[in-house]
């Protein structure tokens, strides 16, 4: 039982770390429309995504594992797509810039040649189609990871402890949120600034060290988590 918990925690935390790399993050330059991507830092958007995913997963508590995991993933995807959609609306109708990025010439999904639409002196603005799709993939991976950790901790607690349902959900939420906080910041140190999703050149350079480091930190955290949960059950 605890071995299964360890494995699912490691898989979940590593999936969160990989998912962060897929999200198109623009940081502060994107808030000034001088860079493409979501106009905030990677840790902030990932923590928001994680909270929404865990909230969605905890709303179907008591159902089977698969449903909880899928609900979490869908919750994260809804959150991130709403964020990107309204960011695009503000960029197009408020700021008045077209959605384009200079990191790639042609959008592979729409075939739209965006070179002429990037303002001189900037690296793009808004979230182009391929980055939008990449953000959805990232949110799916992050949501699956977070709700996998949440549901596995919850199931172990509810099978072995005499606490009420609310307390079990609270403890599982605290643990899975802390995974998001730590792993997302590690991944964003690896990204270092802005990234435009999986079609970006930077993604290919950064994904391998990112996966390795997220795996390492998730192994350490998962061992500590399993130890704490073992202590809560048998201590």
């Amino acid at each position, binding site marked *: 039982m605890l071995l299964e918990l360890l494995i699912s925690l490691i898989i979940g935390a590593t999936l969160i770390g990989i998912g962060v790399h897929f999200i198109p993050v623009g940081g502060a330059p994107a808030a000034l429309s001088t860079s493409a991507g979501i106009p905030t*830092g990677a840790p902030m958007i990932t*923590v928001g995504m994680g909270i929404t995913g865990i909230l969605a997963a905890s709303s179907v508590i008591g159902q089977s594992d698969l449903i909880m995991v899928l609900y979490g993933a869908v919750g994260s995807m809804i959150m991130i797509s709403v964020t990107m959609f309204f960011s695009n609306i503000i960029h197009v109708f408020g700021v008045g810039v077209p959605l384009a990025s200079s990191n790639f010439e042609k959008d592979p999904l729409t075939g739209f040649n965006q070179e002429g639409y990037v303002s001189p002196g900037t690296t793009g603005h808004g979230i182009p189609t391929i980055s939008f799709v990449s953000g959805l993939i990232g949110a799916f991976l992050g949501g699956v990871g977070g709700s996998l950790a949440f549901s596995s901790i919850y199931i172990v607690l509810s099978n072995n402890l005499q606490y009420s349902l609310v307390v079990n959900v609270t403890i599982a939420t*605290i643990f899975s949120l*802390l995974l998001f906080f730590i792993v997302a910041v590690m991944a*964003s140190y690896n990204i270092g600034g802005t990234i435009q999703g999986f079609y970006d050149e930077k993604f290919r350079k950064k994904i391998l*060290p990112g996966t*390795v480091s997220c795996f390492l930190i998730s192994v350490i955290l998962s061992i500590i988590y399993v130890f704490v949960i073992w202590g809560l059950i048998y201590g």
Partner: protein
Amino acid sequence: MADDLIPNQIITLVTIIGGLLCIYGTNISILGGILAIVASILAAVLGTNTLRHVGKYSLGTGVPSIVYMLTAVALVSYLTGIVVSLYLNQTWIFPLISLIIAAIISLTVSEICKHIFNIQIEILSKSFISIAVASLLLMMSMSTLVAKSYEPSLIIDNVINNGMIIFIMIASVMVIQNPYNACMGPNEDQYRTLSLSVANGFLMLVILSAISLLTTEYWIYYMIISVIGWFIFFRKYVLYTKHQAASIRRYGLWPIDDGDD
């Protein structure tokens, strides 16, 4: 940045020893809450002062994220410390063991940052350990104010099982990272940043002492102390800001015309 008037080593030493002693004294009936307030103010000062040093370097993402990650690390070690002390049945071991575990995890994180991400900052490990310890002491003293004791079983009942620990975590992130984020720049000054940090700490303690009305009848004294402390230190912050500004001009509300005449 101007030279530091209080060296970081002295702040670290005073905070770790004084903070631990204050946390161990929180079982005393009315004095306990005051000791918890003292410990949280000391921890806020240590966290912000360390962040001032490491925040000058570019880590690839914003300043708040360092504090977010290290506060999460501190919370993990806090929970581990609770479980260890419950398992060994020794209450006094809980603050000490959490401190040691926080130092170990944050050292591991900083080694990963150094060797895999190639972040070349000499003071990285030291700063990470120091911020993690500071946020751990801050969260611990805030939760002892609510739980009225540092006993792990009481903390589990009053702080963790109702999920208040997440609120305490976000509050401690706010106390540590907000002052440096607000004051950073070329003429950032130690006294100004730290006075804002102490003011923020008192502001959070006002809310926490209102929450502690569930567990203690002395909550009103803690609240009065926190409000007075917030007033004194925020006033100090405003005075330092005025003192260090190049010039101060007052404007009224929005001008009706373009202001040409």
